[in-house]
């Protein structure tokens, strides 16, 4: 069995300046939520764009054994879906039509979305809590609602690897958690073995700690730490975060009334 997802010795440079150097990371099984953390300009977005095949790179990126470099768009789109910070939809379009775009790579040239595809799209919309919006004009939605619609489109694409470019950048606190919870539901399936993984660029390390299985910490074009919040000792994580965000304390607490799960917050030390 090939590894689920692997990056081997990935290096990217743009007009001579190294943006990423010798990144290596792999995960054996699907069902993983991976956070990419790091200061601005550390190469998070570059890593996503390399996986999307938008930048030339040295090294090897594989998904279930398939080399992702040089795949034609239709093929690539059947493996990976990408959620940009903000979708570039710029003309009036119904929410349902936006979600139906998720079927693009599976439709033949002149084929139209079928009735069952429409039903699937409506179901995806109701999963993200946007069922009532199917007939609305996408452009009139708020930033948070737009992201949820794009998430529904991602559900429709039904790919193995989901890439998210800073889904937390334009959302308020409640919507950030809602978004991450939905991604988590897609990746960590409760009822069936999951086939998906998600790689998420995040600004907020607390979100990463709450939802992700693995945290990749990037700094100065390099992968400096790989953290597993479930098992790693607090002091070790504190040390790792301090290298990126400056002196920081990681505080763990639980609120049995709210949830059994331990919560963590980061406190910067001025």
């Amino acid at each position: 069995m090939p590894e689920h997802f692997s990056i081997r010795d990935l290096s990217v440079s743009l007009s001579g300046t190294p943006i990423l150097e010798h990144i290596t990371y792999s995960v054996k099984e699907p069902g993983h939520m991976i956070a990419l953390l790091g200061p601005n300009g550390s190469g998070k977005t570059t890593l996503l764009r390399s996986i999307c095949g938008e930048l030339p790179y040295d090294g090897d990126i594989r998904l279930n054994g398939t080399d992702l470099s040089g795949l034609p768009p239709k093929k690539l789109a059947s493996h990976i879906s990408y959620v940009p910070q903000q979708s570039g939809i710029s003309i009036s379009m119904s929410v349902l039509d936006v979600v139906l775009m998720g079927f693009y790579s599976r439709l033949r040239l002149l084929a139209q979305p079928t009735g069952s595809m429409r039903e699937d799209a409506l179901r995806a919309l109701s999963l993200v809590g946007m069922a009532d919006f199917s007939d609305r004009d996408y452009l009139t939605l708020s930033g948070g609602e737009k992201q949820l619609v794009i998430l529904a489109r991602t559900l429709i694409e039904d790919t193995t690897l989901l890439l998210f470019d800073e889904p937390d950048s334009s959302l308020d606190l409640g919507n950030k958690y809602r978004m991450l919870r939905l991604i988590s539901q897609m990746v960590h399936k409760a009822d069936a073995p999951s086939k998906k993984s998600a790689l998420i660029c995040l600004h907020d390390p607390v979100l990463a700690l709450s939802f992700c299985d693995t945290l990749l910490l990037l700094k100065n074009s390099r992968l400096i730490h790989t953290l597993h919040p479930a098992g790693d000792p607090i002091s070790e994580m504190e040390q790792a975060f301090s290298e990126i965000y400056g002196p920081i304390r990681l505080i763990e607490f639980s609120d049995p009334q709210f949830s059994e799960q331990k919560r963590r917050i980061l406190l910067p030390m001025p």
Partner: protein
Amino acid sequence: MAILTLAMALTVIAFVSALMTGKYPISLSGLLSGEPMEVRTFTVLRLPRSLMGLIGGFGLGVAGFVYQTVFRNPLASPDIIGVSSGASAGAAFAILFVSSASPSTTGFAFLGGLLAVCLSLGLTALSPVKEHASIVLAGIAVHSLAQTFLMALKLMADPEKQLASIEYWIMGSLSGVTASKIRIPVLIILVTSFTAFLLHRHILALSVREDEARMLGVSVQKTRFFVLLLATLTVAAAISVTGLISFIGLLAPHIARLLTGHNRQSACVLSGIMGSLLLLTADIFAKSLATVELPVSIFTSLLGAPFLIFLILSERRR
């Protein structure tokens, strides 16, 4: 659906009125009794002219919809990649060096428009940055080139006859449209618009950002090239017969979207129907308001300018 039916009904009314309007009075009873002069006027002049208004306007509307969607810009129009100026230069060339009669101006205008678009799309293919912006830049370059060429031709033209013909062509008119002139252009417009409807899904997919479209599985460059070529063929076929007709490609999609709300497939069809309605109405005015034929673009612009202002004002509320 109700809106679509209503728009179609209005277009049929406009079509029939266009058939009945003109210098020579035609009556239904005259036509039915086979009065030779009336039948001749009807079949040789009115029918081809009204058909061209109907189908040419339809093509301009559909093409405008395609341009605005693909360029993700509500102000995009055929001028943006140089079709109109290329066609004008082509027509002027024909008037000067071949003949100012119809088959040659039509043919050369069509070739000129196509050449201009091939130039701008070719330039874009050569550029390392293959984005919408570079198509627009290439279009502006080609547009200026064609304008320069047109200016040179105008300077060389005999001011009495040729210059007047060039100017008249640029103002656009449906007068002098005959059956033999419109056969091929009408066929082209019907085929390209129908293909555009079939490809509606791809046209919509081009309206998102390029990286996003690619990750949805769209071969952006290939699809965009084909779709733009399709829209350009439509426009070139229409204006090669009628001369430049301003604003219809800009207005029709906006009206269609205002009426349908979203960018449903019906918006694309409705955009075509609105194009027909606008052109037929403008042509009715052009042939009935004065004792001489007026250029049709006067009326399309007259409708277009206030509507643009309305759009600017309503945009702010969004």
